[in-house]
């Protein structure tokens, strides 16, 4: 079966567990929130690009919500959350002192071996996994540039949560940063031959990044989203079409080689 063997990950994967984590701090950016929890084990195990399954603290919600790991500092793990539907809205309403059940870390994470120069491309809430990635790359001495695209200034408030030295912004309506898409932005920034792309965002953006990278023969990785049930590889609920058949975002992903994702 196509989705049994995942792409080789550059680092050995730490194992997941269920963590009961106290919320240490919550910061709000419009409809977005940075939720920081205390989770020593989780913090130690997590790799950039991995995600967790968080239980919405309200019995009405049967399924956990997948969330990328936004940042790790000492014992603390931070998530960057957009209030999209009722469940994520409830999560952005968490308060310091609340207890969250966090299952993870899950997924493969970004392959980092051999990366010299990295261009991080994010769109909308898709920027979430890129801070942790930037931190890890910078620590390894890799040159990092980030290009984020947002709809408007309101969405661009997300950027305020980031600490990346070379961070470029574009908004579609020009209300913050450069006017245009993130593709216009990376076009302007350019990318040297050995640059590895790390992209995360809506499907339309990823498809455009895929084309842009292909035209320039740039290697890259994309972090994907899918509706999930188990987050564990059990249910086959989270597949996306790839050049080698359906792959499970939670097991073979969420990071897949950029050129292997199939967009119609």
């Amino acid at each position: 079966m196509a989705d049994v063997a995942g792409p080789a990950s550059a680092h050995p994967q730490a194992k997941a567990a269920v963590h009961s984590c106290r919320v240490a701090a919550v910061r709000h950016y419009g409809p977005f929130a940075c939720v920081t929890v205390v989770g020593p084990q989780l913090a130690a195990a997590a790799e950039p690009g991995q995600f967790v399954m968080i239980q919405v603290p309200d019995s009405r919600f049967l399924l956990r919500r997948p969330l990328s790991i936004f940042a790790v500092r000492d014992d603390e793990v931070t998530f960057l959350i957009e209030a999209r539907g009722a469940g994520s809205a409830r999560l952005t309403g968490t308060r310091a002192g609340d207890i969250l059940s966090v299952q993870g870390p899950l997924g493969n994470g970004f392959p980092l071996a051999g990366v010299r120069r990295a261009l991080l491309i994010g769109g909308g809430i898709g920027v979430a996994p890129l801070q942790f990635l930037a931190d890890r790359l910078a620590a390894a001495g890799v040159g990092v540039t980030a290009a984020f695209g947002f709809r408007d200034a309101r969405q661009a408030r997300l950027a305020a949560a980031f600490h990346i030295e070379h961070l470029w912004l574009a908004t579609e309506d020009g209300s913050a940063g450069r006017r245009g898409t993130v593709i216009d932005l990376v076009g302007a920034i350019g990318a040297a031959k050995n640059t590895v792309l790390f992209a995360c965002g809506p499907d339309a953006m990823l498809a455009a990044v895929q084309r842009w990278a292909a035209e320039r023969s740039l290697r890259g990785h994309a972090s994907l989203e899918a509706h999930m049930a188990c987050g564990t590889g059990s249910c086959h609920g989270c597949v996306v079409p790839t050049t080698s058949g359906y792959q499970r975002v939670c097991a073979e992903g969420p990071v897949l080689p950029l050129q292997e994702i199939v967009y119609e």
Partner: protein
Amino acid sequence: MSKAPDLRVMLGPIELRHPVIDASGTFDVLEATARYERDFLTDFPFAAYVPKTVTREPRPGNPPPRVAETPSGMINAIGLANPGVAAALADLPRLAPLRAPVIVSVGGTTVEDYVAVVDAYEAALAAAAAGAAPNVVGYELNVSCPNVRSGCLSIGTDAHETEQLVAAVRPRTRRFLVTKLTPNVTDVVAIGRAALAAGSDGLSLINTLKAMVLDPATLTPLLGNRTGGLCGPAIKPLALRMVSELAEALDAPIIGMGGVISGRDVLEFIACGATAVAVGAANFTAIDAPDRIVAELRAEMRQRGLAKLSEVRGRALDRRPPAVTGS
């Protein structure tokens, strides 16, 4: 009642250390072990293991999205994605460390498909060296999957087709044979009776209810397959009704399921006549949900002064003689 309650049950000839097993397709012991700190193979929370339904050929499954949440429930249209029986048999040695008995879930679109899968398992198990395979004690015939356009549905919704299927599989194995019934029928007892008449040893139910959810943005079906199967706490009252109808009308061990999320739910299914109880969607609420459910069941029994589950089995059933038809 200070003695620890005895949770053991006999599912036909199979002794289970407690009544809680997994519902096919909702827990993969190899995947969970690969990803979690815990070795679920040697520290298996369920009393028996029912893997995801296996078909003769590999199946890629349905186009995504395949799952969505619903009020107190969820919907799925996986489409029986599985690597096919050959790959499943190649994985058997990896399941060998499992101490729990295994009930293999078999699916297909024709009677021949089912027979082929069972034959392949029987051959592989007969050939396996000692310790090289898990303890396969039975088969569960998934005749009830509502997601596959071309086959399953028509078998499980028709008493005659169900009977023919079970009759074809029955002679191929001496292991325990369970038929898994769909709730998408007018008369579940008629289908269950047909399965037993053809030699099924037990029945399991319910599979998911055929349903549909819309994408709120587009107002078109959210799932790639348009429709899918509804399950979870939302449908537990329907499942309890069907399990008790079967238990009242027929005499066979029943694996009850549908919306079990707590120890009390397990007790409720047993009160409705089930012998074992399967946990499906609740596996997605937390990887340790089965441990919690078994612990709650034990606590409930203690609180209620129950020494054995047989004290409660069938308590909710209607024991009056059936009404005379036509009166």
